[in-house]
């Protein structure tokens, strides 16, 4: 019996060493986060100058031309529920935009894709920043920031940081398609973005009023993943809307070109932002801006702003996860077997002792 017990102990010890050693090897392999896919600079085939229409030109002179863009301010929420978004219309070189005006539409998120396909708009608002920095026309937040029962609340604020500030509020989950235009260094430029608002309030029906689209140059923007959560590694496609003639498009940030892969699309471009180690180290809600800047005839620019998150799936390893789970299962099962064996042995010893 003692010999059997010794053999069993050796077997258990061997198995434990085997599993722990195996687990250690796995951890050594996977303990340091895997290197993300190479950034655009290193991924030579993806980010070399692609020979497709609409592809970015060689780095150099074009990047010196300032462009107009929307920047997102800090999101907030009114106490009674609506989500409030702040957008700044700024020039990339910090010069004050002149003769600025804006136009946007708010669409319930659930119907956003259908409405885009149909080319209609549920609600439109238009306005103008007087002198590039003044108070704008249109509806505003009620005094004290309290909401009236309507779901879509629109508001504008005056100058901020040398640019123009637009405040949009929504009481339901909605997407705000925003277009702005201004003179940048004497050239008429346009900026566009689609901002998600997670409003949640006890509101009423959305307003039905419509106004005419200004017919400015604009993009259609789509992505390979969920538009409400753009991620690195997803492919985003910009195509010019009817009447917009588009030149080369490039992805820029304040720090320079955004690493990624470009591909051609009919009167547009596809761009896949490369995985970013800085973003990967942050939480899943952290973002970095991407400005897709297109050159218009006449020298102005048309810029699309979106903010990209880290990829949710690029760093995942399913086989390794299953292996880890199986290892935990095996170790626990072994522990239970050893625990029960000890109990049985103790009972047998007791019975043997009593018999003696």
């Amino acid at each position, binding site marked *: 019996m003692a010999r059997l017990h010794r053999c069993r102990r050796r077997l258990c010890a061997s198995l434990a060493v085997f599993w722990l050693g195996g687990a250690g090897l796995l951890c050594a392999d996977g303990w340091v*986060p895997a290197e993300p896919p190479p950034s655009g600079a290193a991924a030579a085939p993806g980010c070399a100058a692609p020979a497709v229409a609409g592809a970015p030109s060689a780095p150099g002179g074009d990047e010196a031309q300032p462009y107009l863009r929307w920047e997102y301010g800090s999101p907030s929420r009114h*106490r*009674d529920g609506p989500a409030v978004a702040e957008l700044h219309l700024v020039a990339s070189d910090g010069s004050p935009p002149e003769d600025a005006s804006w136009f946007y539409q708010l669409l319930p998120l659930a119907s956003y894709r259908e409405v885009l396909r149909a080319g209609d708009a549920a609600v439109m608002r238009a306005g103008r920043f007087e002198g590039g920095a003044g108070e704008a026309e249109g509806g505003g937040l009620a005094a004290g920031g309290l909401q009236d029962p309507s779901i879509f609340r629109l508001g504008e604020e005056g100058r901020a940081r040398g640019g123009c500030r637009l405040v949009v509020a929504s009481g339901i989950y909605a997407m705000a398609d925003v277009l702005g235009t201004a003179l940048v260094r004497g050239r008429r430029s346009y900026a566009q973005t689609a901002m998600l608002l997670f409003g949640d309030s006890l509101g009423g029906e959305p307003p039905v009023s419509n106004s005419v689209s200004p017919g400015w140059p604009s993009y259609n923007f789509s992505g390979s993943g969920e538009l409400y959560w753009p991620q690195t590694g997803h492919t985003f496609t910009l195509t010019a809307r009817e009447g917009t003639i588009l030149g080369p498009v490039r992805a820029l940030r304040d720090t320079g070109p955004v690493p990624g892969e470009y591909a051609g699309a009919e009167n547009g471009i596809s761009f896949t932002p490369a995985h970013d180690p800085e973003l990967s*180290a942050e939480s*899943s809600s952290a973002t970095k801006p991407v400005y897709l800047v297109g050159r218009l005839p006449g020298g102005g620019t048309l810029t699309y702003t979106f903010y990209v998150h880290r990829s949710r799936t690029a760093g995942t390893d*399913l086989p390794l996860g299953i292996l*880890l789970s199986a*290892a*935990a299962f095996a170790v626990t099962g072994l522990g239970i077997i050893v625990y029960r064996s000890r109990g049985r042995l103790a009972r047998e010893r007791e019975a043997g002792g009593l018999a003696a």
Partner: protein
Amino acid sequence: MLLKGYRLAIQHVMFIVLMYGGRFGVNLGPAVPCFACPYVTGCGGYCYLMGLQGYIGFGISLGHFWGFEGLRALGYLLLFAGLVMLLGKAWCGFACPFGLISDWITLARRRLGIPEAKIPPAALRRLGAVKYALLGFCAAGPILVNLGVLHRDFYIPFCQMLCPGKPLLPLFAGETRHFALDLTNAATLVITASSLAVTGACLAAMIARPRFFCTFCPMLALIHLLKPITPLALRKNPALCHGCGTCQRVCGMDVERVCTEKASADVQTGDCVNCGDCVAGCAADGALSLQFAGRTVVSSSAGLALGLRKPRP
């Protein structure tokens, strides 16, 4: 046998409702008192633990506590309390999808003749306290994230790191992605490694013990804290008890008190999941009963206990 049969049927119906009901427009809300896992696409309701962590964590800032968000969180808490008042711990014994998976594993173990692993009562009592610690962790984790002590990826710590339902339940909707190890950064690696290790260990332990995870479940702890307002209760008439110990033997949670209590009628301990197995197994007429607001719903009887006298392997 009748009670067990009804319970099994109800468990399966609730499994379908909670796991797939969302695909048919069913939505029991974000305050369901059992593991209705939000990670399952198309689920019929959301487990309240996720909402609780979310509201304590990133859902409410102090400035908005007295506004719409605070009212909403309070509303969901009242909804949770209302649902608990409706069924009490029967959410655990009759409705929890993860509980049903545990019961399936136990049934398979018995058919295979694998004996159950016994834990001494003293150790079991100590282990039972862990569920309250996990409940505290559900509250403390998101606060630590808000204070910047923990990486923001830990924003729903219990669900992401410790709940075995998160990888297992989505399997029944064809989703395997929660079994993946996330190597994006150190925080995601720790989170997913913890989740997978706990899941693997729980699976092994569930084979050896019925309802193993219920001993540690913070939802059970939360429901037990609301015991004073819960009309559904397990009651004992000590005068009618024979002391045969069948109730404890058939109890999946090994609750000792249901057998040893000789004075009080209240035998519903923190570990009891109101499955009714003890009532079904008790051969003494009227000794044990499930009561709702003082009215007997089902009571033990010699006839009801027929067929449950066979000793468990």
